[in-house]
């Protein structure tokens, strides 16, 4: 489950406007404006390729299907995830910010509510992203998974609070109010 020696890179190939899906068990993964490009890794250097790969693996292992969309008009996590949920055939979406902050959302929920929230980006590693994907698939199938255990670290504030703010500001800079969300094909390439 850990990352291997080899490095994987991510490119997101645009395949059309983001539209509403019809598969009743699908999960939409909704990415923030700077995800994958220009940023390539989370606040604790988990490669974005690995974030996507593990989310998809979690969904696939649980027998689900997934679509990935990229949102440009907002960098607000709740808004990104809620937008994804409204396009999702199951109503379930995973929203991810470039710095790693992640939320599981459902279309009938209020925007600021959520199914599971992972606010402390520094504590999210590949293993957690896999579990988030697995839970998303289970919610989409109408099951009730055990919530992904959340971690807590009081000393995350002195180390990461300012970097998180900086990444947040950078992400805001990548907002393009005129650009509609697109569906993307994640292409993960292994570089040995």
């Amino acid at each position, binding site marked *: 489950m850990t990352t291997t020696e080899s490095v994987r890179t991510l490119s997101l190939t645009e395949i059309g406007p983001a539209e509403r899906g019809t598969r009743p068990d699908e999960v939409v993964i909704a990415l923030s404006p700077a995800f994958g490009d220009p940023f390539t890794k989370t606040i604790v250097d988990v490669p974005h390729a690995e974030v996507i790969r593990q989310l998809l*693996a979690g969904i696939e*292992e649980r027998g689900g299907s997934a679509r990935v969309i990229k949102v440009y008009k907002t960098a607000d996590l709740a808004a990104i995830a809620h937008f994804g949920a409204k396009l999702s055939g199951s109503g379930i979406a995973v929203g991810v910010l470039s710095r790693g902050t992640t939320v599981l959302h459902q279309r009938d929920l209020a925007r600021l509510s959520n199914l599971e929230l992972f606010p402390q980006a520094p504590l999210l590693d590949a293993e957690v992203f896999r579990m988030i994907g697995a839970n998303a698939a289970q919610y989409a199938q109408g099951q009730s998974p055990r919530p992904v255990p959340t971690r807590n670290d009081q000393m995350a504030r002195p180390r990461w609070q300012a970097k998180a703010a900086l990444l947040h500001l950078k992400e805001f800079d990548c907002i393009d109010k005129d650009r509609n969300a697109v569906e993307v094909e994640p292409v993960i390439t*292994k570089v040995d």
Partner: protein
Amino acid sequence: MSLVIGVDIGNSTTEACIAEVEGSGIDRLASSLTATTGVKGTPANTAGAVTAVRRALEAAGRPSDALATVLLNEATPVISGLAMETITETIITESTMIGHNPDTPGGEGLGVGTTVTLEALGEVEAGAPAVVVVGAGADFDDVAGALNRALERGVDVVAAVMHGDDAVLVVNRLSRRIPVVDEVSAVDRVPLGMLAAVEVAPPGRTIRTLSDSYGLASTFDLDAEQTRQVSPVARALSGNRSAVVVRTPAGDVTDRRIPVGTLTLTGSGRTLDVGVDGGADAIMEAIGRVAPLTDVHGEAGTHVGGMLANVRDTMTDVTGQPASEIRIRDVLAVDTLVPATVRGGLAGEVSKENAVALAAMVRTSRSRMQAVADALSTEIGCETIIGGVEGEVAVRGALTTPGSSVPIAIIDMGGGSTDAALLDRDGAVSAVHVAGAGELVTKLIDSELGLEDREAAESVKRHPLAKVESFFHVRHEDGTVQFFTEPLSPHVFAKVVTVTPDGLAPVPVRGPLEEVRRVRREAKRRVFVVNALRALVQVAPQGSLRLLGSVVLLGGSALDFEIPGMVADALAPFGVVCGIGNVHGTEGPRNAVAAGLVDAYAGTAAGPTPVEEVAS
């Protein structure tokens, strides 16, 4: 005209009824309810009684100096205890078998080959059947790549056993579809170089070969004697969707009884030992043989022995009676199943082990109500009279239920014990108390569902279930659907919930609603219904339920949403009219004793009749 308050100190609640009495005329003003402080019938009750009196006064809007008399029931201490012993355990030796149920095994079918690690797969000769063992930390893409390369080389990769939750991912990437069992936490302990079989059934099905003795015999080419030896393995695996069996020289699965001591039962001049591991039926049957029971002892160092000693000690503490004089007069044993981790398992396998839950009850006639009455007089500053024994007053209170008639029996199902009393045509009252009530039900629900959360178990016991099917609707356990205009809380999404007055509360189980409902109803049946019948038989004329006439349910559990129905159904075949008490046509099943005390004071009730205590 005088202002009086009847106070009923019960096992868990203290009730008060305030009334103006003029001659035999009664004007009931208000009632109140609070938790009983301390063990019933002991001086510690004073605080709760004061609270109940004060609240009744407040509710009636009367000052405390207007109060003329407080009437107390003659309450006697009842102490109950609860213990559970697990009496079976499953042990796997030499890591012979993996019988856990990962949520998502990969592929399907049966693969038989020699166990080999992923790292050593390159050294396996072409054509050899291999069961690949994948350790922790391996990436699914890398694993699939390695297996595909081996297959290309001609190695007969027939199955895999993995540490991570990767089975579907790996199988989806293979050139050949093989059965894969994953989430095996101690995969490093799988014996290598041994013949092993891996079986995965299609979704919704269970395995057929490894869970069958002759299936195992064919797979591993066993003779009749060896087949007999492996039959416990087959049994242990039945019902699973996936399994792994490794053939090792001394591998075995045993299902062993744990000796948990004996109960020594005394009664009818006889003493009988019964092993707790014999199960509830054996215990209850032995109790029947020594009936009426006069005392019970348990073996020191066991849960049951400790519980019985504790019950005795507590009674000694509250009454000052020496422990040697305290007799345990009733025990209820119930069989149950508890999920337990299998010893020697490689994947944290859990098996449902047999357990016995035991409730015991002790009662003494040594009441210290005079001390309570004295303290209450000092605190409130008015006369306090002790009058009327519980069972008697309660049965008279119950008789004020519209439509009831003599002979009348009552059942009061509380937290620790179940009480029954009968008023016969001659005006005689007999009463009985048996062990086991609400707390035992909670414990059974908690352990059988594996909740380890008393709050959740209590909620399951008290409230009906529903399944949250979307943010806007739930399906109740009776099949009806309820819609909501505001979305429900995300905490309950897709969950089995209890429907409480405060809203929906999630039940932390993964199984379906039907399973939770079955466990709840079965727990109530095995305790409340069994005890209602057990107690009524003891007070019924000639022990015949047919001669009871009417049965009125009192107390908190009479307010339960299904217990009254379950008890009534159980009594219906005996021609008994059974229903929920409605004291004075207004109070429901509450306040029978408190109101009864006031009635007796005003002289409206028949004069006191001596009580015949059947079981204490």
